[in-house]
């Protein structure tokens, strides 16, 4: 397998977050429209200016990107629908970047939007996927909490990781969330509170779980020239990877597709994990954060306990992690949860964070993980971003 072609002539800009709410009576369409409106405010672009549209959502049914385009008055010459939840941000970026690079589109709006009506979480779970409907949810209907409890318990046994170690990640992310005015969790979290939280599905406890909510995220992929014309700060893409359904032979998931492709990622990016100024990884559960740190090359899994103990994951720390608080503290807005890692990474390197700024941040690693189709997350992806221009 050769080296990935570089992403020349691509600029990512205008990270956009529509403030999350716990429950919303509105539809995914409403939230997607809100994201576009916010994007328009930042960029000055109207419906006629957007010629590419990439959409991710769990709650837009029966509509796909087709319905969304007509609903929101777009007439793109390129569009894509990304149904991969937590991996959707990186995947949207990859597709949109190539479309722009090859001239299939010039201004691509990438939007993830989901609503959260009363009871819609249960309904989404009940019909989430064919395998989960046949073979996981009728088994106690613990939802992702139960699936990740199996993964977490196994991971702890296999690599000697304790709850305290996961707790350090959660506590650091909460600390980061406190400066983010849009985060749903607004009170500090101590390790004692983390440890004594009520059990949800052993060994997963309350503060290992995200809060489902409604919200939307968006960003723009265009050419450096167009970004300049619009007066937008922009970032370049150094490298990306994507892998689905890897390591099917593992009885319980303890690694993801990143492990297969991380060499290609760092080789193309021309840097190493230690060169990252902030890391925005998918965080539906802390075990997945730890798994990504290892699979993306920050340390080996048996060394995770020491690695996590040796680092400070808060914004001023040695390895700023999920600096908006992540989903664990900012909320999980469905598929938008798979975009917020990207928008936050982008914000930090474009110096427009929602909360505190990571000092000197110019490079970010963004990692996605999505779709527990059966007993494990199927979709993985990662991207290395670097500041291109500040305007």
């Amino acid at each position, binding site marked *: 397998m050769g080296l990935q072609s570089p992403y020349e002539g691509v600029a990512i800009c205008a990270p956009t977050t529509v403030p999350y709410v716990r429950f919303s009576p509105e539809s995914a369409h409403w939230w997607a429209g809100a994201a576009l409106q916010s994007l328009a405010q930042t960029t000055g672009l109207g419906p006629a200016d957007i010629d590419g549209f990439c959409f991710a959502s769990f709650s837009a049914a029966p509509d796909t990107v087709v319905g969304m385009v007509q609903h929101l008055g777009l007439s793109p010459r390129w569009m894509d629908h990304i149904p991969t939840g937590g991996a959707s941000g990186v995947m949207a970026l990859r597709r949109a970047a190539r479309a722009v690079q090859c001239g299939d589109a010039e201004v691509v709006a990438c939007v993830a939007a989901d609503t959260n009506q009363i009871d819609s*979480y*249960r309904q989404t*779970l*009940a*019909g989430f996927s*064919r*395998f989960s*409907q*046949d*073979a*996981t*949810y*009728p*088994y*106690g*209907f*613990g*939802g992702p*909490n*139960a*699936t990740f*409890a*199996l*993964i977490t*318990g*196994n991971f702890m*046994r296999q690599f000697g990781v304790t709850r305290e170690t996961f707790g350090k990640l959660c506590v650091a992310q909460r600390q980061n969330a406190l400066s983010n005015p849009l985060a749903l969790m607004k009170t500090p979290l101590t390790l004692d509170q983390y440890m004594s939280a*009520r*059990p*949800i*599905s*052993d*060994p*997963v406890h309350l503060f290992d779980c995200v809060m489902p909510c409604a919200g939307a995220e968006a960003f723009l992929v265009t050419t450096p020239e167009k970004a300049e014309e619009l007066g937008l700060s922009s970032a370049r893409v150094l490298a990306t990877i994507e892998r689905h359904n890897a390591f099917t032979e593992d*009885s*319980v998931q303890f690694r993801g597709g990143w492990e297969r492709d991380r060499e290609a990622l760092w080789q193309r990016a021309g840097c190493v994990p230690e060169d990252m100024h902030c890391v925005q990884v998918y965080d539906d559960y802390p075990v997945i954060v730890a798994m990504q740190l290892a699979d993306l090359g920050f340390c080996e899994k048996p060394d995770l306990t020491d690695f996590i103990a040796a680092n400070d994951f808060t914004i001023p720390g040695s390895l700023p992690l999920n600096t908006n608080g992540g989903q664990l503290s900012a909320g999980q807005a469905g598929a938008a949860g798979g975009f917020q890692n990207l928008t936050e990474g982008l914000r930090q390197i474009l110096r427009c964070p929602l909360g505190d700024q990571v000092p000197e941040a110019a490079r970010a690693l963004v990692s996605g993980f999505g779709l527990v189709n*059966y*007993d494990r997350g199927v979709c993985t992806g990662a991207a290395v971003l670097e500041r291109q221009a500040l305007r």
Partner: protein
Amino acid sequence: MTEPLPIPKRKDPLKRSRFGLVPPGLRSRAASEMATFAAQGRFVLQSCDRCRSITYPPRDRCPSCWGTLTWADQDRGARIEAVTTIRHSTDNFFRNHMPWRIGTARLDAGPVAIVHLHGEVQQGDRVRMTLRLDRGGNPALFAVPQKETPNMQDDPQLRCFTADPKHRRVLVTDGRTAIGQAIARALLKAGAQTVFLGDADPLMRYPGKAEIEAQEGIEPVSLNLTDSGSVQELAAQLGGRVDIVVNTAGFVRPGGVAFGAKLSDLQATFDLGAVGLARLAQGFAPAMSARSDDGVNSAAAFLDIVPVSGLSGQSGYAGAAASAAARLSLMSGLRGEMQQSGIRVLSVLTGPVDDDWHQDLPQPKVAPGQLARAVVHALTEGQGITCAGDVAKDLFARWQANPLLTMREENR
């Protein structure tokens, strides 16, 4: 070992019974096909017709070579790789049964499966896999200890997948026959608290009456399935106290269709067997449905014993076979209705029984004790279809392989 089930206390009539909910019921067609094997107590997974690899969850094509798939019996061994105790669910049925234990099992057959766990099963254990029907009639993988342990059946999670007679109150519709009496005794031995033993004609003595009625736990009741008034009256008296119905009633007379038959026999066999079954269901099913998740002695099952000839017809017993066919059909309809409320609808298929009305048929015939064992097995396993005796097993296997051929063979 498992804690023995406590004897249930009398219920407070002023308290609202717990709603009889069922687990989420949405399934693929492949999973529904898996249920047909679960109903027989078979442990099956899909095997590829081309490359022979075994796959799970239910798929429509082989993930190794894209060949077509066929369900096939598999090795029941497995190892539990991971375990969790779920303490929170957004589904109301499971909420009522928290905490609930599941695990990741590496099946000896190859695939990995999320499974329900018996209380004695721990992470790292070798287990025996069972494929069962859940309360909604859907297939469920349930891991049990490799070897039988004391009170194993009393595990509260396992009990959601069975209609175990222990501590339950059973109505046996006809106690006048040797079969009805054998079943009543077997149910008491299996731990039933009470057997209400039906008698269509209380003024007429029958063989064994004194002995069976003297047995502790037996309560004789007047019940005539050909009389709607009689069924309704008993349902009004017992409706809220019957947890399992076992229909042992039936009317068999030899005879063909055009030759050697009496229409009055045909009418009698339909009136008792088919219409009687419907009377029984109409009398008892609604009250049972309301109490399907009512604690240790919740209502659990409606079981019908039916001649296997209902699948194929039978020369020389055409009327009895036709009535059996009607019973099987009514039971299918009832199964669909009761799946909404969590009551198991079970059929025990029997070959000719060793009684006065099957004198002319060759051996082997089904002895009352054999039929009683099949009934207890069907209840303790919650199994939808159970064959009692070799004739039923043989015919059922032939019928599954080729129903039209079996009809020809049975009507020569």
